[in-house]
């Protein structure tokens, strides 16, 4: 057996994911009401077809991963960098409403720079704050969107 490189492993994981998605769709579909009797095709037919296809395609991926021999592609992936970005985004989700857009977006900026190997967080934070504040002003005041200011600031505004 050759070593499982990232591509093989990824293919197996994605294949298993697609097949499970297919099974889930199938299971949900059977639990769904069939729809009015007069309709030639109800809301279940199409999902059922997609569910079956997903299971087949998912299993094909798994088979592809298992059968694949030693591949010349031994590309390496920096999982720490991925974890940094994924983690930063989660922190942003948790904090966004509370601290507001400007700090949360700055955090994303600094976190992504860190993942890309930047060693100067202070300078990144400065650029990040400018970008975050700039987008806040542009999108909220000019374009009329609703980026959160932050729950902790709201009482300070005295309303």
């Amino acid at each position, binding site marked *: 057996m050759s070593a499982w490189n990232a591509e093989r492993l990824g293919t197996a994981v994605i294949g298993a994911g697609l097949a499970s998605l297919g099974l889930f*769709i199938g299971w949900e579909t059977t639990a769904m*009401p069939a729809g009015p009797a007069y309709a030639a095709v109800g809301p279940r037919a199409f999902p059922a077809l997609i569910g079956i296809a997903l299971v087949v395609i998912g299993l094909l991926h798994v088979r592809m991963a298992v059968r694949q021999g030693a591949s010349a592609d031994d590309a390496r992936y920096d999982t720490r960098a991925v974890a940094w970005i994924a983690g930063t*985004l989660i922190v942003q989700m948790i904090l966004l409403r509370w601290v507001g857009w400007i700090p949360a977006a700055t955090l994303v900026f600094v976190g992504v720079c860190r993942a890309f190997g930047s060693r100067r967080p202070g300078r990144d934070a400065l650029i990040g704050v400018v970008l975050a504040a700039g987008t806040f002003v542009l999108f909220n005041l000019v374009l009329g969107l609703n980026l959160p200011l932050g729950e902790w600031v709201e009482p300070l505004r005295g309303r």
Partner: protein
Amino acid sequence: METFASLLHGFSLAFTPLNLMWCALGVTIGTAVGVLPGIGPSLALALLLPVTGNLVDPTSAFIMFAGIYYGAMYGGSTTSILLNAPGEPSSIATTIDGHAMARTGRAAQALATAAIGSFVAGSIATAALTFVAPSLAKLALLFGPAEYFALMVVALTTVTAVLGDSLTRGFGSLFFGLALGLVGIDLQSGQARFALGVPELLDGIDVVIVAVGLLAVGETLYAASRHIHDGETVSRVTGSLWLSREDWRRSWKPWLRGTAIGFPIGALPAGGSEIPTFLSYMTEKRLSKNPEEFGKGAIEGVAGPEAANNASAAGVLAPLLSFGLPTSATAAIMLTAFQQFGVQPGPTLFTKNPDLVWGLIASLYIGNVFLLVLNLPLVGLWVRLLAIPTPWLYAGILVFATLGAYTLNNNLVDLVILWVIGIVGFGMRVIGMPVAPAVVGLIIGPLLEQQFRRALAISQGDPSVFVTHPIAATLLGLAIVLVIAPALLRRRSHREPAGVVHGIV
């Protein structure tokens, strides 16, 4: 000539100062997006979609969108020539000889032949679009649900079978998109499907979230994981941008041939501009008296593919406007934009919204002129964009990605979906699964189901409608051939190295 009258009317709309400004803004953003590695036109449109909704009227919005779309096609060539990094898959062919020219000090000539070729091709192809789209719309009126269903199947199979080198992976991506498209309230029965009890999911998963997740978050994760941030060298542009007589002589035929290849292939529901650019490259190599120059800086190898690239971009708009059928990820986002503005692209677009469609087409001509100016005398400005450090570039992309996802509905659920889709997108990038089929599948899926059920409702449940209607049967047959033929070809050339387009959007 009613087309001429309509086009003139379109020009009268596009030539208002405000719309000229939107057009100029669009082509500028588009060029920037094309130049910057990591962002493509589909991502730029997806990010701008939430913003434009409450800002401008549909005609102006589409004038800007079209500018972005065309602009990105021009800008892509700059990156491929100077950085040896194609910003879009459609620029891969240009990179081969374009970067070779840059290495031998002929970057200026490569940029010039790309820009002028893009202008020539873009203008001719826009003219072709002007006449083809209304005729296609008349043809589309003959299409019933069964025919529409079959046509969509063809579009989905081509997007899937053509991109990447593995059918299985392409279909994996496609069905992932189709599955995401199922989420939400079923329009025909009112039944909530796959919403998992989350109220935010009842409206379905927004195509913007999926596109941004796969293209921005997935791409950023991939770039970070691969350390694609060690300094690439940007070639310098030296000397005059003017082409010598010899360069003109060698360029004009490839421009025209590229246009002739690009527009029809773009207009067929065959998706994307990868195929025409490579076809053009191979054609030029075959027709050249000195094929050994190719790969070492043959100007024909830049002129042809760049022309084909822009011509196919115009071609893609034909099925989008006349059938409401998107054949590339960018076109899929444009379709979403139409839906957001409550406009239904398709045969009735030309009668119901003549201002929008003709203003849009007229602005394509104007945008091409703007782009020639932006990309020829001002190319030096764009080169500076390439000096942005990669960490800041990707950090900025993610800030805008989360901004776009959050402001769509002002809820955190969209950020969670963005995160999940981003991780999936990273995995797809790692195993070389194309993401365009997922985006197109998500947007076409619900339409496909609608036509499928309508066709069967009309036939009272008899599935033979799909084979007894001649147009539908032909199209479905074509779809089957499209799946089988490349697989057979691939099997025959099994020992050849994997396709060049492998693993790119």
